[in-house]
């Protein structure tokens, strides 16, 4: 993963992307016990941002030019399939602005905070998100005040209260 992070950081230096944060499973496992995952999700921003629901074409052009293979929507970087996504809604945009700097494998990197990951899991709402959110509540260290603030501002408080009620039944 060291090599993968080095190349991702180079993408910022080369201005292919302006910023990034690790999201999805690989960010969640920074805070909780790991389970199987198969890709590294990156939320990125790009200068002339295209439609946030389409994969960023500039990155695929970069991959092609620099001989990085692609597999479906993933670009294989340092042996790891990386999925680049643009911030697709206000909550994810806010999470990207408030990303936290960390050091992984002796490389600088950015990832979503625990509180934003929890809010995104709640918003996305697939069974796997609820399973991981339950683990966050029991395993992760997070700031409850920060979480409540994010949930309130993004209209997710009621959904969170229902979720907490369900896991305590």
């Amino acid at each position, binding site marked *: *993963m*060291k*090599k*993968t992070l080095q190349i991702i950081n180079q993408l910022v230096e080369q201005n292919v992307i302006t910023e990034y944060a690790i999201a999805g499973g690989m960010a969640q*496992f*920074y*805070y*909780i*016990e*790991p*389970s*199987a*995952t*198969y890709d590294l999700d990156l939320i990125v921003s790009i200068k002339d941002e295209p439609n946030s629901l389409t994969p960023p074409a500039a990155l695929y052009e970069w991959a092609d030019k620099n001989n990085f293979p692609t*597999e479906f929507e993933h670009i294989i970087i*340092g*042996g*790891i*399939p990386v999925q680049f996504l643009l911030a697709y809604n206000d909550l994810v945009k806010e999470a990207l602005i408030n990303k936290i700097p960390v050091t*992984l*494998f002796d490389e600088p990197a950015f990832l979503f905070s625990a509180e934003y990951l929890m809010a995104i899991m709640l918003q996305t709402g697939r069974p796997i998100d609820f399973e991981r959110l339950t*683990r966050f509540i*029991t*395993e*992760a260290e997070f700031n409850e005040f920060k979480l409540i603030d994010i949930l309130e501002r993004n209209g997710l408080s009621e959904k969170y209260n229902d979720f907490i009620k369900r896991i305590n039944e």
Partner: protein
Amino acid sequence: MNKKYISKAAESKIKYHRSRAKMPYEEKFRIIIELQKIEAEMMKSNKSRTNSRIPRVWEPE
């Protein structure tokens, strides 16, 4: 089984997972690859899943 024993067991399980959550990221990364290998083997030997794509096991450089 008495209730006290069950709640004590549940409590110690939570403690265990909480301590596992604190392990270094690099160690977690190693575990993820081991889990990918195990899952890929299971998928290969599961004949009812022959049509589904077996996810790529990471080969970090």
